[in-house]
């Protein structure tokens, strides 16, 4: 039987799913990226492979997320697409009538508006980590709280502290101050959750008409505190799917199914050596950092050049 693999390599976690011809998830997995996408993908594929019934053959591979291009090369993927498309397609396969997708991930957050299954508008955060997952986890560390306990703790508070979260730097100094003045921990945590929601709606969601059904996904969607304030402020029900973290991987798997040919993919990549070597071009004072990508010690691609000077030499 045919199956298709989708991998979403984010800055913090790597997600993978394998689907069958009916877009049903056969198996899935979720591990930390730990700053090394190649290794984490190898690990991930090993897990997926062991869970996969022998009767399936892989007919397509898709990659998405911030390391999509590199991993796409590694796996010889037939589809390499950005996260926005992948998330939209993935979510549509489960909720065909979705109108709004809110997504807060590790490094970035986005909003996608859909109408009759077509993306009509989207926005992403302005290239700053304020109000994203990595901001939350660094603040959790500062307060000495496990990130998993963050949500339940926030729910305990009735009186969230106001925190300025427009910019990471301002928020951090504000947070330190509030902690020193002696606010209760749960109130500060709840304040952080609320400020993330406000910041998101004021930045990414500015001027966008949020219509229900609203679906909230990305790593931060697992945080019950943030979810609570989204519901409260938007004054509408916000759905979090139990597979919400897998939507990107699911979407890209579906896209790869659509694009599949008769090629059969091999998942034995443990022994494939994959290296990137960084070289400074030095052709001009731009000094582009050139990335040379080697697969099994063979040069397969060169990235990072702003002009074609380097390739010519």
């Amino acid at each position: 039987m045919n199956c298709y693999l989708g991998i979403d390599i984010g800055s913090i976690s790597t997600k993978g799913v394998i689907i069958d011809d009916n877009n049903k998830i056969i198996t899935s997995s979720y591990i930390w990226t730990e700053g090394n996408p190649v290794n984490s993908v190898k690990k991930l594929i090993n897990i997926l492979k062991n869970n996969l019934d022998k009767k399936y053959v892989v007919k397509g591979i898709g990659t998405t997320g911030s390391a999509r291009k590199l991993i796409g090369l590694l796996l010889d993927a037939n589809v390499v697409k950005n996260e926005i498309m992948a998330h939209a397609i993935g979510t549509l396969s489960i909720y065909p009538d979705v109108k709004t997708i809110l997504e807060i991930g590790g490094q970035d957050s986005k909003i996608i508006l859909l109408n009759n299954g077509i993306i009509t508008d989207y926005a992403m955060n302005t290239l700053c980590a304020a109000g994203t997952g990595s901001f939350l986890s660094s603040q959790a560390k500062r307060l000495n709280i496990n990130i998993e306990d963050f949500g339940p703790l926030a729910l305990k508070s009735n009186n969230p502290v106001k925190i300025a979260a427009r910019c990471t730097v301002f928020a951090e100094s504000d947070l330190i101050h509030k902690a020193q003045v002696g606010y209760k921990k749960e109130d500060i945590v709840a304040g952080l959750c609320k400020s993330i929601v406000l910041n998101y709606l004021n930045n990414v969601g500015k001027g966008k008409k949020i219509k229900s059904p609203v679906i909230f996904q990305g790593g931060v969607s697992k945080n019950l505190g943030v979810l609570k304030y989204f519901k409260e402020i938007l004054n509408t029900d916000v759905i979090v799917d139990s597979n919400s973290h897998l939507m990107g991987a699911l979407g890209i798997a579906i896209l790869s199914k659509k694009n599949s040919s008769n090629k059969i993919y091999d998942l034995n990549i443990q022994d494939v050596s994959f290296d990137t070597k960084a070289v400074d071009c030095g052709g001009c004072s731009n000094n582009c950092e050139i990335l040379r990508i080697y697969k099994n010690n063979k040069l397969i691609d060169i990235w990072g050049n702003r002009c074609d000077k380097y390739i010519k030499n």
Partner: protein
Amino acid sequence: MGNYYIPAKYLLSHIVDADIIIPPFITAKTIELGSKYSPDFVCTPFKYTLGTMIESLEQGASILIQFGGGCRYGYYSELQEQILKELGYKFELLNLVSGKANIKRIYKMIKRIDKKFNIFKGLYHLYIAKNMVKYMDRVDDYIRKNVGFEVNKNSFDNLNKEMLDKFSKVNNPISLYILYKKYFHKFKKLKINKPKNCLKVGVIGELYTLMEPFSNYYLEKELASYNIEIKRFTNVNYLLFKNKKTIKKALRKSKKYMKYKMCADASSNIYWTKYLCNKKYDGIIHIKSSFCTPEIGSMPIIDKIANNYNVPIIYFSFDANTSEVGIKTRLEAFYDMIEMRRQ
């Protein structure tokens, strides 16, 4: 700024007897230098120009000339002069920013550089330089429309380089005109593979970021690689010669959204948004440097127009340390979206 150093150099080298140093192309080093010595929240062009000035001074320039104006750009030079002096450079800054750029002042300045300056000769070469800018912008306009569909890679780029090289060597308006006609013809003969209903995107925003490709991370090149026809209004020809006219037209044509003239290009951008929407473009990209106040004021209005016409629009706000990957992801998604909407 882009390729406009060619007419500027042409003009200066023909009217005064002095060594003209072309500032080196903006590179990563320029920004690093500029950001290092700039105050906290000035807009990005300040950093770029400051970096360029330092690099030019390093190469031995003794007189710097700065044109421009409209918003706070007009006030840059005074602060930059102070910063550079504190760094220990010795130089003279000729400031031709708005409000100061009257003919008498320019004349005096040129006289100071070169005592033999002849005003008629100056006007003659000014005329050539003006035409050069006009022709360059026309060619650029054509390139933008078609480069996304070129059959042979870099064919447009190479021809453009060849043309600019020839342009820099002309010395009378007629030969310039002939050159322009010849090359325009050559451009039209370049092979392209353009479908009739290709995707069309308009690019608007703040002028510096629009015109200096390095500062917008070669956004137009990236767009062209998706086979998109690009329309951009802002160019030097517009800024120097058609600015007032456009703004008047803008106020007349978009009365519904705008009553007063706004600072810099904000009013023109509002009008262009409406124009692009009316012409059924598939999408609009608005780019600016961070902290560009005039554009910040006009963006809510631009957003409203795009919403009323149901045309997708995205905003980019560039800073000196914006991540290039982030921009590419957003552009790719924008392309996917407008393609999906077509179906």
